[in-house]
């Protein structure tokens, strides 16, 4: 069983760098239960996604449309945001702007306090995980109940999410049964680990909360600038309960989550369910526009959160990360995520998208190891329904990280073995004579390492290679020497 992590998460108010990815990954890789749980879950959803995506003959056109719409949003974000504000107000809602996590949490806390609520129910929302809303409300004596089943499991276990869509993907049902027995009064003594029985316990627990709550809190998958409509896309129906039963609804949304027109749903309601849960259509798509006189909440507030997003927008290569519709297809296909799980990324945004988003939201100094947490295999880009070229952004962030370290790291960083080696290699490749001399030097220099036609141990920073791999020694003749010998037989090779 994996231990709850105490790593700082994105938007965390505790400053300081997070644990480097290779160290966190090493621990996760040794956890057999975690490896089994995540390996099994990602493989299942990966295969299912491939099947339902394969059914659509216009899948590539949908991806391109999804990308193009988001690109337009980012290009005109200022105009669209103001349009959204006007539309929401016109429909009877209130709009609040929040520069960062603290401001967003304060706005929500003030609204909840103004209605005298001590308990609120919440739809699963990554943005409020990012701002650590639950913790901020708790400081003001307000308890926020998570109502998404997986998110409830996380909350009850005092754990943190390890997947964007399936936050408790690292838990199996035996672990969940044990957790429910320990934490929920509704759990009978003979509770089995049958998923249906587990869901029934959670259902009874949540019904009480839904019926009692005066305030509901949600995130937003989309908000339409043209109409002011906000949307949550989900599977369980618990989100629908939160957005329709309480008197007051507060939706917290990142500023990039808007789409220009109602018609744009056409694209995303096809691509999102297929990419996330591998369903043709998700069971519940809730859409609300301000308040209606005889239905749903009496009061609606939309909190628009920046929290680093305008920094991402300012990066011309990296801004495509703001296209993300949080489907998590990139996590499910990522060979690194599949083996390390989400906690190793130390952020509410794990996997490939997290490896680019976290360093941009928080600053490269706080997450410098994340852009290297990838073999650049490109599986993420191939499945992304909004065509975020994640490998390209990863490489771009590596450039920023190298520059940052050179600038801020002092003499020690500038004289680090990797940097020195890269400099020397750049010089070697810059001239044929130096390059050919280096080839000869490598051949001569390897003699202490090569035994019986193999190199089984390398020194220094290369030692990781020979932990489980041999290396073939540099052969006696390079290709170019062979070529020269062949084409100019008289000349000395």
């Amino acid at each position: 069983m994996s231990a709850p992590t105490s790593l700082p998460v994105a938007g965390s108010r505790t400053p300081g760098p997070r644990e480097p990815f290779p160290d966190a990954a090493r621990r996760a890789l040794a956890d057999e239960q975690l490896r089994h749980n995540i390996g099994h879950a990602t493989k299942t959803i990966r295969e299912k996604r491939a099947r339902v995506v394969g059914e659509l003959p216009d899948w590539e056109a949908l991806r391109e449309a999804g990308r193009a719409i988001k690109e337009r949003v980012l290009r005109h974000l200022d105009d669209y945001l103001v349009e959204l504000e006007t539309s929401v107000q016109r429909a009877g809602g209130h709009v609040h702007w929040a520069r960062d996590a603290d401001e967003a949490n304060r706005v929500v806390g003030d609204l909840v306090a103004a209605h005298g609520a001590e308990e609120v129910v919440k739809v699963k929302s990554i943005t409020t995980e990012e701002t650590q809303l639950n913790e901020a409300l708790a400081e003001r004596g307000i308890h926020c109940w998570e109502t998404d089943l997986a998110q409830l499991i996380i909350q009850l276990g005092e754990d943190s999410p390890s997947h964007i869509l399936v936050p408790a993907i690292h838990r199996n049902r035996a672990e969940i049964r044990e957790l429910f027995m320990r934490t929920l009064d509704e759990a009978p003594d003979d509770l089995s680990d049958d998923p249906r029985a587990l869901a029934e316990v959670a259902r009874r627990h949540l019904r009480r909360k839904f019926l009692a709550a005066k305030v509901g809190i949600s995130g937003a998958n989309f908000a339409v600038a043209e109409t002011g409509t906000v949307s949550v896309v989900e599977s369980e129906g618990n989100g629908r309960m939160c957005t329709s039963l309480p008197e007051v609804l507060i939706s917290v949304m990142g500023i990039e989550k808007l789409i220009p027109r109602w018609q744009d749903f056409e694209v995303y309601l096809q691509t999102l369910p297929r990419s996330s849960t591998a369903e043709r259509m998700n069971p519940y798509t809730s859409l609300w526009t301000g308040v209606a006189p005889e239905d749903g909440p009496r009061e609606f507030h939309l909190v628009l959160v920046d929290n680093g997003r305008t920094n991402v927008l300012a990066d011309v290569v990296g801004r495509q990360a703001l296209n993300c519709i949080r489907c998590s297809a990139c996590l499910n296909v990522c060979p690194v995520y599949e083996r390390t799980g989400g906690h190793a990324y130390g952020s509410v945004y794990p996997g490939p998208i997290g490896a680019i988003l976290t360093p941009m939201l928080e600053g490269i100094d706080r997450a410098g190891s994340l852009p290297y947490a990838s073999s650049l295999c490109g599986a993420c880009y191939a499945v992304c329904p909004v065509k975020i070229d994640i490998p390209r952004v990863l490489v771009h962030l590596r450039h920023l990280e190298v520059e940052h370290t050179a600038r801020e790291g002092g003499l020690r960083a500038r004289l680090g073995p990797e940097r020195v080696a890269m400099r020397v290699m750049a010089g070697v490749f810059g001239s044929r004579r130096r390059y050919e001399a280096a080839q000869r030097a490598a051949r001569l220099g390897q003699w202490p390492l090569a035994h019986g036609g193999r190199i089984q141990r390398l020194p220094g920073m290369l030692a990781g290679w020979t932990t489980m791999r041999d290396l073939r020694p540099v052969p006696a003749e390079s290709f170019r020497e062979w070529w020269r010998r062949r084409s100019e037989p008289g000349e000395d090779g």
Partner: protein
Amino acid sequence: MKASLFITCFNDTLFPETGQATVRLLERLGVEVDFPREQTCCGQMHFNSGYADETVPLVRRFVSVFADSEVVVAPSASCVGMVRDYYTDVAERSGDEALKEEVRALQPRVLELSEFLIDRLGVEDVGAYFPHQVTYHPTCHSLRILHVGDRPLRLLRAVAGIDLVELPEAEECCGFGGTFAVKNADTSMAMLTDKVRAVLDTGAQVCTAGDNSCLMHIGGALSRQRAGVRAMHMAEILASTDEVRP
């Protein structure tokens, strides 16, 4: 047809037999091969490791070395991917309009071996003979940067005597990723373990691919495990005939 060989620094130094096989194969198919001697490295290692400034002169060097080549062929999808995909970014970064133009002009003329054979020469059966059981690992950059598709498999299927066995979970990365294998050695090893298990499950004697970097990774583990399975570049299989065996 004339073609310039871009051997790649990696093959030049560590896998000369792949370069020799490529030359043998192309000449057998009637291609006039030249080897511009001034070539060194395409810059992929520097670029992917974060050293963008150091990459710019290497890109300059590459485009000037191959400027006059009708077509450039390389037995490496990864290095061709660097040229065709990422050279645009490097040129952009340099801010040098002339370099941008040179890169744009050269890119479509740089081809990976299977692309050259099938798209330019129009051959699938290259007249090879290789009577062994072989499994093919499609490397990430060949699949997802160059989109070579089944070109390598079409070439391999046409080899006389070959017993080609399908690799399970073939499109999964082997975990090499350049400096990733060293910087995230533990994760890389976990990926490599699964790839090696898949290779061994096939029962093949030879694991082949279009990139020696990935093959060095997979082959390194096969060698350490004394698995009795050989990693061999696709070019060497395609070059072998009844008379000439690798």
